[in-house]
């Protein structure tokens, strides 16, 4: 078969709509996993009990909401995605899903997830979910991302809300403790994202996205990564002092925080050549592990009821 014939067939296949795998990719499944996981921790860590069926329903709604936000992001950012090596194979720039299909899919899924959350769980959780989807799409994707190097600092708020949604789903309210979980993810986002952005500076520059390394340079980005990491390490320990995390969490958060600063320091120190790339890669990989293990410690403590809080220990002593 000639290339011309093959491309004609490709075009006809494309015109028939994407495969199921394309729609799954549209929902950014890896981001969705982290969103659902942190929401689960918020839900389990919240005081009181929630019926397992309602908890599963809440998590499904959160997963759907996250998928909707991802699809709408891919609809709007198709032009940027097509210019970047990391994202060029996404369903819309590849032509497997049309922008109109991505928009419809994201909008319907988003509206449905919020409506179901309201009906099945409660309307505060639904409002938070709607706000998060709206913030990610309208504030981050449509405005901040193309406008300021602080895009992911402010936009990171969207990714930080899921534990609060989980908390709200379980209790019908939000609390200072759930806000601390929000703050941890909020402060974690810049070093996590910028470590990747340092490695993809050329990509972002080509796509005219004003990421921090493009606008301020890699050295300034490394400095800011280090500052955020130094703030994050003690912040990660705070749940242990407000009764949210116990001894296991306290120990885990201290060790993980020290390691985070170490990797950030390595990234700050190594500025050229292969070593610099390796340091940024290590920080990026570690940042994912950090958040996962930190929240897993909370999940284990609350899930198995083994979390004796530090204030309680001090009080007894």
């Amino acid at each position, binding site marked *: 078969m000639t290339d011309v014939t093959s491309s004609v067939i490709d075009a006809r296949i494309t015109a028939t709509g994407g495969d199921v795998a394309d729609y799954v990719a549209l929902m950014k499944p890896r981001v969705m996993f982290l969103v659902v996981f942190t929401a689960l921790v918020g839900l389990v860590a919240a005081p009181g009990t929630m*019926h397992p069926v309602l908890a599963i329903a809440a998590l499904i709604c959160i997963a759907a909401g996250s998928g909707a936000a991802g699809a709408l992001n891919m609809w709007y950012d198709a032009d940027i995605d097509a210019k970047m090596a990391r994202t060029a194979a996404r369903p819309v720039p590849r032509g497997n899903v049309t922008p109109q299909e991505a928009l419809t899919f994201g909008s319907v899924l988003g509206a449905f997830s919020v409506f179901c959350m309201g009906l099945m769980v409660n309307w505060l959780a639904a409002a938070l979910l709607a706000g998060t989807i709206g913030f990610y799409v309208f504030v981050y994707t449509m405005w901040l991302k193309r406008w300021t190097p602080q895009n992911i600092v402010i936009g990171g708020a969207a990714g930080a809300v899921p534990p609060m949604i989980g908390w709200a789903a379980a209790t019908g309210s939000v609390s200072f403790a759930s806000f601390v979980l929000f703050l941890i993810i909020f402060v974690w986002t810049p070093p996590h994202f910028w470590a990747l952005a340092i490695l993809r500076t050329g990509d972002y520059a080509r796509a005219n996205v004003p990421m921090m390394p493009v606008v301020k340079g890699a050295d300034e980005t490394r400095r800011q990564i280090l500052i955020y990491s130094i703030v994050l390490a003690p912040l990660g320990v705070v749940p242990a002092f407000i009764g949210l995390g116990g001894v296991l969490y306290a120990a885990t958060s201290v060790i993980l925080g020290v390691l985070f600063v170490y990797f950030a320091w390595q990234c700050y120190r190594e500025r050229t050549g292969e070593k610099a790339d390796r340091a940024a890669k290590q920080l990026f990989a570690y940042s994912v592990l950090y958040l996962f293990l930190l929240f897993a410690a909370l999940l284990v403590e609350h899930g198995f009821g083994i979390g004796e809080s530090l204030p309680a220990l001090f009080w007894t002593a």
Partner: protein
Amino acid sequence: MDDADKERQRRQRTRSKAIGWLLFALVVLFFLVTMVRLGGNVVDRPL
């Protein structure tokens, strides 16, 4: 029927199956949530 038609049909079939399973899962979920929400309240009402 050429390759493009076959691929189009395959994609349509898998999409339809996925939507079918999704709808079935939603029906089950709505049923379970309704049962949990109603709970014993169904029998606890004035006659």
